[in-house]
């Protein structure tokens, strides 16, 4: 069968059409929900030390200076967050900014020996040119007596429940 239309092969037409479909696939229509783009979890990895993990979807990134962590109650005594080095980029509006992609592990010292709720505010964007309104995600953490079973209490909580609890940040 002759698959040529004039001088352009069907393959070329398909390639051309797919340039369009690839672009529209990358467009904002397919934007992930923020809690899927920036999957959050937190656990106590040893007494007095929380590890916060974000699994950042491909094509998305987070800003270092937008993270805010608070403990409820405040008396849980959250220390200063320790971030790994990110990627420095020169933003035309903000100058030098540090961003993260892929997996991000942040460590937070905590004084509490009991249970507390960690509230994490974060903000990120998609490469397609959309930025998310800051998202607040929470995790209930329980400091166990022995470091061996120090764990989070909300581990079995269905994702949906957590998503329902996720609320826009207070300012």
């Amino acid at each position, binding site marked *: 069968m002759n698959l040529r239309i004039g001088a352009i092969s069907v393959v070329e037409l398909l390639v051309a*059409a797919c340039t369009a479909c690839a672009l529209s696939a990358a*467009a904002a229509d397919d934007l992930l929900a923020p809690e899927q783009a920036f999957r959050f979890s937190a656990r106590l990895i040893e007494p007095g030390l929380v590890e916060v993990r974000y699994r950042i979807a491909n094509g998305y990134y987070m800003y270092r200076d937008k993270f805010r962590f608070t403990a409820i109650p405040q008396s849980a005594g959250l220390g200063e967050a320790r971030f790994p080095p990110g990627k420095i980029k020169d933003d035309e509006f903000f100058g030098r900014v540090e961003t993260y992609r892929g997996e991000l592990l942040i460590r937070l010292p905590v004084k509490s020996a009991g249970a507390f709720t960690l509230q994490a505010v974060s903000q990120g964007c998609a490469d397609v040119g959309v930025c998310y309104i800051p998202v607040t995600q929470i995790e209930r953490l329980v400091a166990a007596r022995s470091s061996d079973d120090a764990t989070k209490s909300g581990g079995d909580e269905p994702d949906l429940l957590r998503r329902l609890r996720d609320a826009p940040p207070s300012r």
Partner: protein
Amino acid sequence: MKRPGRIALFLVAAVSALAAGYGLHSWNSATAPVSGGAEQLMAATLPDMEGNFQALAQWRGKVIVVNFWATWCPPCLKEIPEFVRMQEKLGPHGLQFVGIAIDNRDKVREFAAKFRINYPILIGEMEGIELVRRVGNDRGGLPFTVIVDRKGRLIGTELGGLNEQKLTAIVAPAL
């Protein structure tokens, strides 16, 4: 056919396909407009940069481009100079931009001055976030632009960056 001709034809095909894709994209729009979204938007009242409450309904009768933005959102800042130009050019023909900033007032003021924004800016904060969702942007992505015609009907929504050409194509038939 010689090679340059084939390349030219290929380019034409690619551009047409792109245009078709773009057309579909515009009409299928970035977000599913919620029925009644335009009414809810037009019924909103938010404070301006001076703290005075402004009802969006005051611009009824014009073609209104409501742009949700924030100073922490680089793609939002990128499109604002084009909006400023379009407001100047098409304002006399009945086009009215209204910016709703999901941000705090001091930062917004600073940027509005820096960008010489020539259209009203309202401060959204929490209520603005609610409004963004009610108009059908459940992902909470910015920039997000909603275009309403002279009769208050929704004629377009766009999640992500807009440019003058793209926006003119949406507003021109309504002006």
